[in-house]
């Protein structure tokens, strides 16, 4: 934000901070590069050295930095640029010229061949980022306390959005997104309670970030704040190989991206997993390689954090089938116990995949899935009626996501096939 020559550039840069605008993007410390599609035929090429920072863009704008540079920097600061990628010719030549003119004789190292100096510089940048994030989260916590003192009824959405913008500057994009979601909550009967709970969980995150040391909780907290792990790093970890059954799929339009959530369960290990696919906002997802009911022998590599859930699809070995497979289904009390257990590891979790056997029934809160003991989970979402229609009141194996609102059913196992709802 501080780099922007004026507020118009800031706004324009913000608009370009979307993955859909960029191609051939990459980041190899300290070089950041990408191509941005403008109104002309040829995309504008952008290169930035984040140390100084210095930058170069092929667009004809007379503003420095231009909106393309700002857009790329915003995108990078929000974790939208993965480490690696093929360094564009434009960026390489520019960096070499810059080094020559600065009198250094270092040659550009590839992203995976760094000198000790570069490693140290990277560590220093990481430490600076950690400090920026810590400062940002501390400021968030103070802001939250201020809202509690003044009264939530006096909190204006603009104030929350301003605080969210400062969190983006502090490179804590996930926390910023959550705060913007709270600011956008519709007024109504539950508004006060929802805002209080939202602020309370952000306060918990801020405090956890201050006090977390090393270990699995630290990874979870960093993920919730907005630190990302590159897919390449995840794929470099040891996978879990299993016959993975796709039990559900859901598309959601989020702020700057459309996300497809795909739920899987390991048919041999019972391990649950979630794989995400992304598309530009408002665009339909391309055909997913994972479809509900599909089973495949594959490697899943899990992202850091506890409980382990999000994964990246690695090597696929063969298609599989459900022949003779009996899933381990839980009772309602077992599902609740599992949910509470994972919630204890990640209090900000919104859903967890489960498999249970039950039949649809009626509860004081509406439709529910009950087991043989009469204990039940409230059903919610747009899959309730398809579930009722498919099961006809009879018991069935139901796959779904359990969360604070109850169970969102995603599919049913019937006649040896998984039928998506």
């Amino acid at each position: 934000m501080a780099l922007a020559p004026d507020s118009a550039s800031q706004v324009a840069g913000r608009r370009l901070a979307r993955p859909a605008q960029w191609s051939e993007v990459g980041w190899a410390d300290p070089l950041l590069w990408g191509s941005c599609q403008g109104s002309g035929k040829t995309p504008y090429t952008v290169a930035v050295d984040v140390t100084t920072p210095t930058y170069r863009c092929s667009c004809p704008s007379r503003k420095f930095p231009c909106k393309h540079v700002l857009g790329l920097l915003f995108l990078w600061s929000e974790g939208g640029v993965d480490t690696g990628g093929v360094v564009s010719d434009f960026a390489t030549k520019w960096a070499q010229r810059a080094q020559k003119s600065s009198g250094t004789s270092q040659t550009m190292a590839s992203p995976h061949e760094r000198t000790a100096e570069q490693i140290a510089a990277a560590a220093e940048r990481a430490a600076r980022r950690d400090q920026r994030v810590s400062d940002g989260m501390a400021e968030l916590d103070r802001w939250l306390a201020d809202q509690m003192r003044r009264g939530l009824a006096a909190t204006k959405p603009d104030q929350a959005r301003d605080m969210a913008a400062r969190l983006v500057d502090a490179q804590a994009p996930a926390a910023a997104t959550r705060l913007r979601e709270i600011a956008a909550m519709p007024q109504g009967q539950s508004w006060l309670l929802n805002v209080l709970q939202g602020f309370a969980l952000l306060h918990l995150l801020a405090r956890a970030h201050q006090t977390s040391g090393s270990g699995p909780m630290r990874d979870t907290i960093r993920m919730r704040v907005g630190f990302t792990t590159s897919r390449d790093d995840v794929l470099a970890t040891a996978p879990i190989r299993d016959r993975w059954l796709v039990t559900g799929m859901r598309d959601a339009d989020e702020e700057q991206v459309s996300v497809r959530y795909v739920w899987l369960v390991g048919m041999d290990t019972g391990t649950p997993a979630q794989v995400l696919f992304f598309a530009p906002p408002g665009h339909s997802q391309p055909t997913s390689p994972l479809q509900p009911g599909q089973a495949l022998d594959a490697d899943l590599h899990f992202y850091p954090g506890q409980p382990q859930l999000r994964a990246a699809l690695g090597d696929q070995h063969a298609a599989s089938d459900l022949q003779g497979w009996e899933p381990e289904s839980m009772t309602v009390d077992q599902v609740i116990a599992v949910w509470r257990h994972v919630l204890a590891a990640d209090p900000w979790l919104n859903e967890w995949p489960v498999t249970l056997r039950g039949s649809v029934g009626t509860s004081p809160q509406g439709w529910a899935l009950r087991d043989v003991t009469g204990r039940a989970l409230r059903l919610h979402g747009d899959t309730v009626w398809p579930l009722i229609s498919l099961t006809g009141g009879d018991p069935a194996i139901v796959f779904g996501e359990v969360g604070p609102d109850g169970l969102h059913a995603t599919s049913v196992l019937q006649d040896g096939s998984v039928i998506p709802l």
Partner: protein
Amino acid sequence: MTDLDDLAAVAAVGTARRTSLPPLPHITDAVPTRSGDLAVAALDAAAALTVVSRGAIGTTAESLTACSPETQSEPPAEFMSALRQVTGTTGGGVIGDYQTRVAVACEALGWMHDRDVRLPHREIVPLLQHPQAQVRRAARLVSGQRGRWLTALPGAPGDPPAPTPSIEEWTHGTSAQQLNYLTNLRAVDPQQAMELVAQQWKQSPAALRAEITTLIADNPQPTDEDFLENCLSDRAASVRSAAPPGLEKLPNSGYVGRMMDRIPALIQADVKGRVIVTPPAPDEHDQLGKKLTAQDRVTRVVAAIPPAGWKRATGLTATELLAAPGPARSQKDPGYQLIPGLVHSAASHTDTDLAVALLEAGHIDARLSPYIPAAVMAGALAKAGHKALAKAGEWVRLLTEHPRPWPEEVSLAVTRTITSAPKLDAIQAAVWAALAVAASPNTAAQCAEGVSARLARESQPKHGRMIAAATATLTLRATLWRTLMTCQPAAHREET
């Protein structure tokens, strides 16, 4: 109120003026509430309570009575795959036009009903939630035991069945409710229906009286004659004009008798055997008032005569009368036409012979189409040729309004006529649209092949897309029909 509600009440106004938080018995031991920064303490307490509440998701529930087993089978998978192309609410598939997709979907669901097969359970809810009411209605009829069970549950998707109208709707309802009640009652007890009408006739407003008269005139019984006859003297013009269409449908009514009495003066033969038509004198009671033109009075009298009555009155059948020559006419003296009245009479009395005679004499009228045998219509179209389908005239209207699906002969005749045109672009768009959805399912594939072959011989017609769309619709309908006909419902009945 829970602890969280209490905390929310505090949070609403703020902790600045407070010295302590309210008692929070469930978390007192874990979270201090009296010392330190109250705002932070409140956030700490809210966080703890929030996490706890997120974990409290269990409840109890009563079971549902399970659905009875199905007695009908499902259609073949290929049929369902084709049906999904027209029942989806998003774009795409081979048929781009939404209304066409709806029409094809309803047709296919109707075929399922005729074939006694039901929807697979996973298809029921999406179809009951379809944006188009006619699709929802059609789907409901083929949703089987599961659909009936489902739609009886509270809050179920789809349209609830219309409640049986009650007498309160007649006595206190709106005009629409009163008409609805009357329609239902006439179907089961026409006499009581007329008694109710008579009871409040005098005080009913003219608009309602006219609507009731129209309702009765649409499907009159002999016992309705007195009522309709009295309507001819009603104080409101709208009521008076609504009665004759009903009286015309009662061949033995006094009204028809009076019209028959006018025939000798209306139609005479001169010494050369030519038919001379003389308009009747104005008669306000029989709705032949002075405000009508002479031709209109001729038409009304002729329209009221049942085709079978002409022989008795004139010695000529209606068909012979149609063929009888008239005197030479000039622009100054065009004479009076019997044709408009004869067309109306053929349609209202569903007289096939007269309808065919009119068609063969070159009088094309869409009102006659339901009564013309398929072979006759096909022959007449072949004779008229492709030029008849190149202008927005009566042939196009006849085809677009003909009951669907068209008979096989008509479907093939239309296809042959179209493909005989030197340029496909010359054919009216309405004909392509009608062919696509109205061609008989048995011949749809043949029609599609004929059009495709013809299209291939023409280089880049201007309306190529529209023609290709019609072909795609025909092909899909043919697939739906063919795949459903392979299903043997009786062989797949599930054991109960």
